[in-house]
Structure formats: structure tokens, C-alpha cells
């Protein structure tokens, strides 16, 4: 098994993601440069957070034209697990792998804080170990993280259980106060219909070491690893 961490110019969580995978979970992982065109040899892809290409046009709007993204889209369609964190989520939406968009936070300000997250479905490679609506703690840090999608797509997302994470309070209740950015239906993360592509605003890559105040991020990467392991021979 080997996991790719894509490096776009302006990615700034690439090193955190690689360390979370290698130091935190002892998983084989490597960087893949955005100018590369192939993902051969990899079994899953992480699109890390940051400000790809400075996010000067619109978050993720330029990154999706990177050479590597053609391979990401192709692999995703073939069923490879793809996870986009923060800016990676924005890139997945821009690339059309996930519906909707991340717009500016309701406060119009960047927000960095610790939040609670409820796992809405265990039916993805990333949450397979997280049955029973578990509540996780991890940081968010974004200026444009308010998830928005048109009403029909929202209905589809909800009815097909594609909402993977929701912002909740500590006890697991969906409240207005626990929504840090104005996301519709408190949505913090969604998957595609095939369930192999996940986008989420919170940072499991910053929650994998007790010292950092939470290890809950390991549960997500751990689920992914365990899903991959039976199908990939070492």
C-alpha cells in the first residue's frame, strides 16, 4: 500500500499530511509533485490544505488545471480513494469530483479553532471504522469554508447519505452555534456518489498526536488504511 500526498505550489499542509501518515500511522506515503501526470503505484491520494497557486482567483480554481489533477480525476473515476482536506476539498469541488462549492465564511473572516464533528456515515473508506455517529475533535483553519450547494443537490446528498461529517456541539447535536462558517446543514465533509472521494474542511492532519490536543484524525486515516489493506497485497 502507498498513499500519495500531492504537492501543489502553495500547498502548506503537505508536510503535515505526510507526517500524519508516516509518523502518526506508520503508513507508506510519498509526495507527488503537481507537474507529474501519473499516480501509478499509489493506492490512495491526499490533496492537502494550503493556498494552492495563492488561491488568488478562487480557492482551488487554478490547482484543478495542474497536470496531476487529470490523473487524480481518472483514478477517482476508477474507484481509487481520494481525500481532499481544506484546500483539497475546494480543489475537488472545482474539479467536479464533488458537488457544491466552498464560499467565504459567514463572518467574512478567516477562522481557526477547534471544532466538534459528527460522523454521519460509516459507509466510506475513510469512516469505515467510525460507526455509530461518533463525535470527533479537530481543528479547522480556513477563510472560505462555508459549504454551499443548490437545493436539489442538497436533497440528493442527504438522501444518498453523502454527507460524511457535520459540525456539532460537544454532545453531538447539530446547532447554529456549533457551525463555525455558515455551511448549509452544518456540512463539514461530503463524499461522491461512488463514496470513494471525500472532501472535508477540518484537519485530521493536525489531530494525530496527543500533544496537539486530539488524535481523532488518526481514525480517518486509519479507516482508509484498513480499507486498502485487504485489497492490496504488500
Amino acid at each position, binding site marked *: 500500500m502507498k498513499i500519495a500526498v500531492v504537492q501543489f*505550489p*502553495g500547498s*502548506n499542509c503537505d508536510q503535515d499530511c505526510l507526517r500524519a501518515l508516516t509518523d502518526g500511522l506508520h503508513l507508506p506515503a510519498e509526495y507527488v509533485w503537481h507537474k507529474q501526470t501519473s499516480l501509478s503505484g499509489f493506492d490512495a491520494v491526499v490533496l492537502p490544505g494550503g*493556498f494552492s497557486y*495563492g488561491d488568488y482567483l478562487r480557492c482551488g480554481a487554478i490547482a484543478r488545471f495542474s497536470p496531476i489533477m487529470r490523473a487524480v480525476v481518472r483514478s477517482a473515476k476508477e474507484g481509487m480513494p481520494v481525500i481532499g482536506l481544506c484546500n483539497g476539498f475546494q480543489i475537488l469541488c472545482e474539479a467536479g469530483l464533488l458537488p457544491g462549492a466552498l464560499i467565504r465564511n459567514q463572518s467574512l473572516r478567516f477562522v*481557526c479553532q477547534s471544532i466538534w464533528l459528527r460522523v454521519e456515515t460509516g459507509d466510506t473508506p475513510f469512516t469505515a471504522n467510525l460507526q455509530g455517529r461518533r463525535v470527533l475533535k479537530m481543528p479547522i*483553519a480556513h477563510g472560505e469554508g462555508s459549504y454551499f450547494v443548490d437545493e436539489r443537490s442538497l436533497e440528493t446528498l442527504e438522501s444518498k447519505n453523502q454527507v460524511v461529517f457535520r459540525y456539532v456541539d460537544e454532545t453531538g447535536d447539530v446547532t447554529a452555534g456549533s457551525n463555525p462558517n455558515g455551511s448549509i446543514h452544518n456540512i463539514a465533509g461530503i463524499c461522491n456518489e461512488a463514496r470513494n472521494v471525500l472532501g472535508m474542511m477540518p484537519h485530521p*492532519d493536525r489531530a*494525530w498526536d496527543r*500533544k496537539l490536543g486530539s488524535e481523532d484524525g488518526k481514525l480517518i486515516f486509519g479507516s482508509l488504511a484498513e480499507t486498502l489493506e485487504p485489497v492490496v497485497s504488500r
Partner: protein
Amino acid sequence: MVTEITPDLIRTHGLTDQEYAQIKAILGREPNFTELGVFSVMWSEHCSYKNTRLELKKFPISGQKVLVKAGEENAGVIDVGDSWAVAFKMESHNHPSAIEPFQGAATGVGGIIRDIFTMGARPLFLLDSLRFGPIQGASPAAKNNRRLFSEVVAGISHYGNCIGIPTIGGEISFDESYEGNPLVNVFCLGILRHEQIARGAAKGVGNSVFYVGSETGRDGLAGAAFASRDLTEQSKQDRPAVQVGDPFKGKLLLEACLELLASGCVAGIQDMGAAGLTCSTCETASRGGTGVEIDLALVPQRETGMTPYEILLSESQERMLIIVERGGEATLKEIFDKWDLPYARVGEVTCDGMMRVLDHGCVKVEIPARKLANNAPVYEREALADPQAPEFRIEDLPAADSHESLIRLLAYPTIASKNWVYRQYDHTVRAGTVVPPGSDAAVFYVREADKFLAATTDCNSLYCKLNPREGARIAVAEAARNLICSGAKPLAVTDNLNFGNPYQPKIFWQLRESVEGLAEACLRFGVPVVGGNVSLYNQNPNSAIDPTPTVGMVGVIGEERWITRQYFCDQSDIIYLIGPVGHELGASQYLKIIHGRKEFLPPRLSYDLELGVQAVVLSLIQQGLVKSAHDCSEGGLGVALAECCISGPRRVGARVDFGNWPERLDQILFNESQSRVILSAPPEAKEALEAVCAAAEIQFGRMGQVGGSDLIVSARRETLLWDVDELYHAWYDSIERVMRS
């Protein structure tokens, strides 16, 4: 076209007749227009420290752990053990932030980050020390202060978040003296191995000199000279002297430079900050004992028709000068192509000691590099002491309602929670933040080195205004105390001296007193000064800022279990006060905020007491006897106790009794006497803890117990009670409320 050098032109370049005569003596001829510009920026206060150099010599700069001393390079470097070292420095961007707060603050962040990776270090985190005029109220001044405040915070957030370096702490305070002249002091720390220390020296005659990074434009033209003048009504016209930052380019440059440094082909590296290409060429040549010759026609430019004068004095951001070893040219090209960054070989290292600048092969500047970089005039300015402030007498102060006073103090923006600010900063990127903003000191885990670092910035400018020497000493003491409370042993200091116009004897006196106070305290606390920055001419049209010698201090926490936070944790824990109850109300926030009086002598620091308290607190922490430790500073015991109750993840009450203590309750609660720490400890640690304090012969007292949902304080027959939720909301939501108004 030749521009004639007239007395007027010399004056508009900020040079005196005497300085001009010295320039002629160095050159043995008249300078041309371009050379005049070069001298003007290099000999500006910002680059030459001409009015402060003699004072700065008073700082203790040596120590066993000092690997690169203050003034040697772009930043000092300190050994942190196991062949790892940290490079850190604080720098101001006050003038640009007054004129263009967003870009001014953003480029301040960019500049200090470049200073750190220029040393070969990977930048790990940032701190900011910020000062603004009061933000409360509906007056035009308050509105403008709110604008400056929110734009500066947005600028820091813009640059720091995008480049991916967490902003994990600092301080912010508000006072009338900063109206129209905010202070933006930015601190950055990076990690490196001893053998990775890079030098800003042009080594090796014949080596190629490369320009890398963003193209040069006309922005920030002569910014260093602009920052060396008073801010006036006309300063708005200097807006072109403010640079524009591009954190995305900054990120690429950071990664490319670190990759290049790791390749081992770099002979010298210097960022282009103040005075841009001028400063980087003459300083690298001067440090290398060599010369540098470059041709401006080769410099990547984003505007057409730029003159040599403009190219040399531009302060466009995200640029570096790199000298590569022979044969390393291909490596540089490969790495900078990979990162899609502009680069150009603009010249080479020479043996003649000259900074020689050509334009299409024609010599435009030819100046002995060492003399330009190091022989700036040095002045000893006239100093005139302020009359000493009177001693505070409690009899002259009508007692105010202490219940209400505590709530008002907690809600005052200087003391209130800064979450409105730090939530806008990405403080968790790089996955190392252990104690986030909002504690006495921030704690960061350096994964590659397996080290816990603590860092803080401190300065009480109200104390400095009323007694600069004492205020400066206290700034060092408080910084050290903050580190101790987090479990760290203080290592070293960087300072940022912010003052008004040094040609005013009273201002120069403030500066000298402050420097001597800092120097003395650093010596006593055993923390060398490894670098820093001086920012003068901080004047608004009415007056000078209060003297603000900001101290940035770094410490190491030896073991993870020593990391200590400021808030009470568990019911029934015992609350201790280490140090005296105190009585000094002069220059306190209580006098200023509640009684509207910014006067009287500030508290006095006793080194013996302070060192004793710090040693005992650290020892208690290391012995595992302590659950929380919080230093008493602005707002005294009252504010510190409240913060212990409300700044943690779970709010908790406390009951505190001062027994028959004779002072008035407001004096007990709000005095700002130094050398005091509030500890909480589990009941089972009581005997051991008290034995340690008694053995150390340090004054201490059992104040009360953690528990309930109220903060209850009694002394003699008086008892005050606050609901901790009420205290919390007064404190936590205050800045948000003010900014929404």
C-alpha cells in the same frame, strides 16, 4: 541625463552636510545621483542604527549557547541541544502599517520570515506584538483605530496563513499614545541543525551572484528612508514607499531556498529587505571581505524604464541574493525552475572590496562596500531626563466598586481575550502547537528536533512611560516569568525598540534608560540578546508614542510533562500565591482604566525576589506538584485569578480569602507588584509544595481552593462574588462587541 547634486537634493535624501562630506571622503570625489541614493538608504536610521548603535553596544550578546551573535547576520542563532539550534528575531513594520495597515503588516511578516530562512532555518512559528490607539467609542479617532487594528490583523492573517507558518502568540494593547502610529512588531523563529547555519557573506572570488524571487518593481522605493522620518499628515503621500506582499511567492521562495541550501552549493545568502538590492550587495561583500559586481540590466523587472536608482532602492518583496559555489549554477537553475520562480545571474564576487553596479556594462555605482555598510556615522544624541513621576498614595484614591471594576478591567481590550484576533490567524498549521494563543506563553513542539519551545513577547509601555528603566527591566522579568509559568527555562532574547524622534532629548533619554534597563535585566536573568530591531520616529502629529522596548523571549521545556497551562483544572485543587500580595498601584491598569489616571511610579522590580520566585515555580513544576501556573501582570491578582477561572476549556469557580490582610480590597486585587505567580496544586501535593517554598525561603501563601461556579474573594469583613460565566462573557466577547459597534 545627469542629475546635479545640490544641497537641496542632499537634504531631501536625509543626509546632513557633515555626512555628505564623509561620503566625499570615502569616494574621493562627488557621488553621482544613484550613489547618493545608495548612501541615503544605507545610512538611514533603519539600516545604520546611527543614533542607537552606541546604546545597543550595552546589551549582553554572548553566552555559551549563542552560535550566531546579534548584529553578525540577519538573525541570531541559539543552541537548543542535540545539535539543533533556533534562529529567531523580532522586527517592526510600524511606519508602513500606519499608512497602509494591511500591506504594511503583511510585508512585516514576510520580511521577518525571510530573515529566518536566510539563516538556513525552517521557520516554525510567528508571534506579534501590536499596539493601537483605543478602539472603543464612536469618535472618528476610535473608528480609525478600529480600522487600523482590523486591517493589521487581516494583513498578518493574510501573509502568515497563506505561507503556512502558524501565528501562535504575542500581545496586543491599546493606548492613546499609539493613535495614528500603531506598532506592528513581528517575531519569527526557525529550526536548524548547527551545520546548517547559512551566512550572508559573499565568499569566493569569481562565484556567481544570483538574484532570485519576484521581479523588481517601483514599490517600496526607499522604504528604509521613509521609516526613518516622523510620521506626519503628509506621510500618506509616501504610500508608494509601502511594499506589497505576495505570500504565495514567499512560500515558493522559502521552499526553493531551503531546498537549495540543503544541496550544499550556497556560498552566501541574503534577503532583500530594507534597502533591497543595495543593502544585500554591500552587506554580503562587506561580510565576505570581498567585492560584488552586478549589472542591473540582468535584474528581472516587472516595470519598464526603471532607472538604476529605482532598481537599487526598490523594496519589492520576496527577493533574495544568493552566491553559489562554482559549479552550483545548474543546481540553482534546476530548483528555481521546479518552483517556477524567476532567477538571474546578475554578477560575481570580486576581490577589490567594491560594490560595483553596472547598467548595460556602464558603471553607475562604485563604492567601497565595507565603508558603505559599516562606516555610517555614529551619533551620541543629547538626553534630557523626565522629571520623576510621583509616588502613588492610596489615601488620594477614592475607592471604586471592586466588583464592577474587575468586570470592566476584564472587558477592556488590553486585558480582554484576544480570540477575535487569534482565531483569524492559522495557529495550528505545521501540527506543532501544544499551547495555543491565550496563555502566558505559547508552546510549540518541534517534531524534527523532539523539543518543546516556549515563546512570549512582553512590554508594559505604561510602566516605560512613567519610568523607562524600570519598565524595561520589568519587560524582561515578565517575559521570563511567562516562560517559567509554562514550564520553560528562558534561553535568549530578541528586542524591538520602539521610540519617538531621537533628536528630541527627552525621547533619547527614554531610549537610553530603556536600553540600560533591558541590558541589566538580561544580564541578571542570564539571557543574551541575540538580535532585534530599532524603530524610531514613531510620532503622530501630536506627540511621540510611549516608549515601547518590546522583549521577545524563547525558552526550552525539558520534558513534556513539565508543560503547564495558566487555567485552573480541577475542583478542590489548592490555590497558592507565590510572591507577595503586593500594594503598588502606580501606572496600573486599574488607575488608568477605572480612574482615568495614567500616572505615578510603576512597580519596582527586585531581582532577588523575582529570581527566587521563578526558581521555585520552575522547581515545583518540574517536581510535578503543580497543575496550573499563571503570572500576575496587568490588572493584578484580580484579573489573574479571573483568568485562571475562565481561560480554560472548562470554566470553574474559586474561593479565595485574604484573611486579615490590612490593605484596601481594591489595592489587594488590582495592584501590579512584580514577582507573583498563582499556582494551583492537588491537595495531596500540599505538604511537598509548601516544604519546597519554605526551604527556598520564598514568600508564599495558600489563598484558597478551586471549585463551584463563582469566583469568591474575601478580605477582612468584605466578600465579593462573581458568576464565572459573567466574567467569561465580559472578557471573551469584548473585542468582538467593540468591533461590531
